[in-house]
């Protein structure tokens, strides 16, 4: 049986990995890999220097090992926010009215990847390093707001997930027609609500400084964090918006084997 040129083309397209709708798959996986390396690196650093240099904020070593890390974190997240948000804005699609349905489907996949990377950062900030805060403050006397875990949790992890949430919001706003025509309420809730967790750090630090030096997680000074994280349920609305539009787009497509 002869293999025609057309058949070869079809076979080649079918075997192409990743498929067109997962064009950003490797970037997505790379983002997971980079974030994992960063967060695990932080944990290893804490294990190496937490007890030896992180217990007394007046010690010279504390400045070297922890305040330098604080300065680095604040500088890094500021630059990263500017670069990532700036890039998304300046490379925006100015011809959204002419967007092909297939390209719109692909962009919905990329938006889902952006939100997924955002939730991965939420995991490290809201789960692992948050509970570790309790663990560390059980054994370390809190003599500064910049403790060995706060420097990572409040000044890297929180800003990082906010930046990534902002990236998802900007990507949708600048590359998908429905999100460009109107502002998605659930996407905005899911990004702005957890952003308020960072703002709650102010109340937390003020409370711990003013009257509460111990660590006790069910205390009212932590309730601002709790209310902020409820807004993560906005993802349910994003899912419904995405699925509804994807069904419309797929129904309009020709069937392909």
């Amino acid at each position, binding site marked *: 049986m002869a293999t025609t040129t057309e058949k070869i083309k079809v076979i080649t397209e079918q075997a192409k990995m990743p498929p067109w709708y997962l064009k950003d798959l490797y970037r997505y996986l790379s983002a997971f890999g980079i974030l994992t390396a960063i967060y695990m690196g932080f944990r290893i650093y804490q294990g190496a220097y937490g007890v030896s240099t992180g217990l007394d904020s007046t010690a010279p070593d504390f400045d070297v090992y922890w305040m330098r890390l604080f300065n680095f974190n604040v500088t890094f997240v500021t630059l990263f926010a500017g670069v990532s948000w700036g890039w998304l804005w300046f490379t925006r699609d100015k011809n959204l009215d002419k967007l092909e349905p297939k390209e719109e489907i692909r962009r919905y996949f990329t938006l889902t990847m952006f939100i997924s990377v955002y939730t991965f950062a*939420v995991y490290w900030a809201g789960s692992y390093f948050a*509970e*570790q805060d309790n663990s560390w403050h059980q054994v370390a006397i809190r003599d500064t707001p910049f403790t060995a875990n706060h420097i990572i949790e409040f000044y890297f992890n929180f800003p990082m997930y906010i930046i990534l949430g902002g990236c998802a919001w900007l990507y949708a706003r600048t590359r998908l027609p429905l999100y460009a025509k109107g502002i*998605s309420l659930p996407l905005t809730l899911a990004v702005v609500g957890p952003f308020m967790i960072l703002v709650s750090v102010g109340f937390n630090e003020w409370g711990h400084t003013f009257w509460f030096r*111990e660590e006790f997680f069910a205390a009212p000074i932590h309730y601002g964090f709790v209310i902020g994280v*409820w807004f*993560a349920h906005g993802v349910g*609305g994003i899912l419904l918006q995405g699925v509804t539009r994807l069904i419309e787009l797929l129904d309009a497509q020709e069937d392909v084997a």
Partner: protein
Amino acid sequence: MSAKLSKPTFKPYTGEKARITRAYDYLILVLALFLFIGSFHLHFALTVGDWDFWVDWKDRQWWPLVTPLIGITFPAAVQAVLWSNFRLPLGATLCVACLSIGTWIARVFAYHYWNYFPINMVMPSTLLPSALVLDGILMLSNSLTVTAIFGGSAFALLFYPANWPIFGMFHLPVEAGNSQLTLADMFGFQYIRTGMPEYLRIIERGTLRTYGQIATPLSAFCSALLCTLMYTLWWHIGKWFATTRYLKRI
């Protein structure tokens, strides 16, 4: 009988369209996994976390009251989206499984390996049996009211018996310093914490023992009542957040 069943009006996707939807499902699964580990864990830790962190906080009065009450919140909200829109009867189990993953990772690497707390002292409780029953009742009844009353109650009532095999041994009495105390309390006295002082630890009060040694059932039934209300409240919170509205401006 089968003639009365309505025929599905949609045509299942095949070929590339089926592959696209399946790939989207996988992306959502990864997204949901990290979302609920991060968000539910933070919500749980900052409201009832202390009871979950420490074995000497796991008393007979407050622990079975407050843990199911906060534990049913996210499951109800997620069920409201996944069951109502996708007929997926796994909202509660998904949330609670995510919570378990998050707590176990933190207890091992943040408590045990960094600060040397024994793992027995910081072992997390489980809500999995409660969540499975909650999902099962919603699936079988397809009713918010039935699930709130029977599922919410079961969620609370199952909590203590489900955890008893894990933590019962730490309630055994020991004698130390001329006092009788539990093994769990011994852990607390051996590993001094800033959260340890008795003016911080919310401990069991004697008044509930007026009716004899049934403090736990009283707390569990009180929690069952509150869980029926909490379930309904959080179902509607989940619905509200899952809006599909687009705004003109913010």
